[in-house]
């Protein structure tokens, strides 16, 4: 066991910071902007530069445009990028789980095309998962794909979809067998977003501009060669992909940045001398440190070649908790100033994290069944 970074990792982090100083889009100020189409060109240029440096998909196997770099290096990159507001835009999803899902289940043509584009940094994806009646109970999704010759005809809708404004492709979950049990009739389509019949409706929300969309599909004709994996076997691929999604983002570093600002504000206002505020700062600090180590545990398992485990659910819940603690503390310390959007005292961010990437309740369900082996009720 070793809790320190290797010399190479330390050097790598230094070189990432130098890269960021040169390549971060001018005037980049991060928070919640990556959904906006006007930043797409910036995100593309940034990812292409990352790709040229060999870092965008460095943790991928060489045969797919990667460098076989350790998962730790990829985690370091994520730690440096996420707190900046994720200048990769939605491309972080490409690297973390969309690409790996295609590696696992894609045809040679799909691998060549999609993995090539992802590792070049010139393509944006969105994730077509949630539906109006399928949120936490994702396997009950109903968007229908019916085979018609060489195509599927897709009808239905997806909701709460992020990154639609910039997306070239959608990683779309569809029901191809309505007779089979819920999990047994799901397929994945790698759907171009410019096909006729896709209606994008923006949903006004209060966590980040243009965060949510409602996608409505009316007789969208998707070539069957765009299906990922076997028909009706999509759920297994998705389950695996989701475990990569959960800890792909270094929320603990966002929490650290917020806590830094909390400490500065508390110093400015004299609250830093308040014993109760000190206690809360210490608790938030400990929560962040715990969530960081629990996330490192997931990276470590991956570095040792372990298949995904419920450690990723544990890490996710811990990260959410750290963000909540620091968010609530910021709310107190910033007082009225926290009411301004983009203030670190903006409580909305912490509210959203316990819903995104699987609600905390779903994470706890999976820890209960997968980690604690608690029995399911067979009524």
């Amino acid at each position, binding site marked *: 066991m070793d*809790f320190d970074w290797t010399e190479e990792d330390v050097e790598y982090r230094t070189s990432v910071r130098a890269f960021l100083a040169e390549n971060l889009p001018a005037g980049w100020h991060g928070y919640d902007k990556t959904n906006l189409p006007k930043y797409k060109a910036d995100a593309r240029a940034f990812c292409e530069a990352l790709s040229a440096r060999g870092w965008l998909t460095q943790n991928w196997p060489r045969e797919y445009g990667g460098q076989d770099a350790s998962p730790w290096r990829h985690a370091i990159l994520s730690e440096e990028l996420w707190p900046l507001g994720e200048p990769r835009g939605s491309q972080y999803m490409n690297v973390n789980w969309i690409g790996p899902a295609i590696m696992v289940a894609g045809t040679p043509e799909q691998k060549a095309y999609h993995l090539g584009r992802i590792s070049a940094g010139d393509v944006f994806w969105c994730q077509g998962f949630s539906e109006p009646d399928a949120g936490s109970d994702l396997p009950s999704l109903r968007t229908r794909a019916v085979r018609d010759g060489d195509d599927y005809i897709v009808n239905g809708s997806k909701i709460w979809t992020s990154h639609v404004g910039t997306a070239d492709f959608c990683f779309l979950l569809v029901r191809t067998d309505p007779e089979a049990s819920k999990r047994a009739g799901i397929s994945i389509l790698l759907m171009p977003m410019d096909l006729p019949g896709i209606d994008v409706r923006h949903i006004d929300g209060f966590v980040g501009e243009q965060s949510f969309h409602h996608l409505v599909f009316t007789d969208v004709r998707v070539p069957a060669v765009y299906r990922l994996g076997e028909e009706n076997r999509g759920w297994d691929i998705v389950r695996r992909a989701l475990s990569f999604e959960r800890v792909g983002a270094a929320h603990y570093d966002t929490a650290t940045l917020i*806590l830094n600002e909390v400490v500065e504000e508390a110093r400015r206002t004299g609250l830093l001398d308040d014993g109760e505020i000190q206690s809360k*700062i*210490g608790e938030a600090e400990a929560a962040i440190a*715990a969530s960081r180590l629990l996330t490192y545990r997931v990276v470590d398992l991956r570095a040792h070649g372990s298949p995904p485990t419920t450690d990723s659910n544990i890490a996710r819940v811990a990260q959410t908790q750290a963000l909540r603690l620091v968010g609530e503390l910021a709310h107190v310390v910033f007082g009225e100033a926290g009411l301004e959007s983009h203030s670190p005292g903006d409580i909305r961010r912490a509210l959203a994290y316990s819903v995104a990437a699987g609600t905390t309740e779903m994470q706890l369900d999976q820890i209960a069944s997968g980690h604690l082996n608690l029995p399911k009720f067979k009524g």
Partner: protein
Amino acid sequence: MDLTPDDVQRQILDSVGRILERGADPQHTRALLEVGKYDEALHAELAAGGFFELPQAAGPLEAALVCETVSKAAGLVAATATGLVYPMLTGEAAPGPVALASDKGQPFRLGQFAKVILILRDGDALRLTPQPGDVEPVDNDRTGWPLARLKPAALSRAEKVGDGAQLLNWWRTGLAIDAAGAMRGALDVTVRYVCERIQFGRPIGTFQAIQHRLAQMTVQAEGVYWLALEAAYRNAEPAAAARAATWATTTSPLVLRETQQMHGAMGFTREYPLHLWTMRLPALQRELGGLSAHARAAAKLRVAA
């Protein structure tokens, strides 16, 4: 960065596991606790196996891994004070069971069995080899540790062995390790119980109201475990030690309350072993000023950094 135990660490854990399997059966521990005795046999076996000399032989992380395992098995021995805090503070192996005390006259864990007592006084770490009458057992049925009190007169015979801050940091690290073990042990027992206890025609562990709370406690306790190991790895670096103790004392009340609650009345009996783990937590929670002292220390160290 590598958070997987290497071969040597795995071997150490396996061999201490075998000793605990033979020596730290809950019925045996409960019987000792009821008559106010120390598990001399287990202590001797751990000492003979070299487990209390791991700080010198392998390192503090290996010692911490062993101490956490002993705590998780509810072994009634002063493993952490003897096998981690003392050797790290003094650079020597302990001559026998070690206890950690403040100079404020408060009850402290396992003091009546100690061959040597480390005392935190002002800025100093003091060592006392207690003589008959220096230490008196405290009558208590509130915690899972036999407690004792140091007579003030004995303090005059204590000699300085190190820096008080060093002792404080190792003590914080040690209490986080003990808390991690106690919480993880309590959770294991509780998970078994809720799978066996049938109410409303089903194991109560099938209820989501139980499952989510156990899962949440797991997240907390695993966090304490890793923070405690990191603090040991970092030689009780002050901020790491304060973070570990903070998270241990933040989490302990939750695990105490919830694991007891899930056992219903059964959890309050002496016969059922849950108390061997849970009743240790209140004592750990109070040491060194408790949560607010650790958390404020963590905050001050962060602000100063």
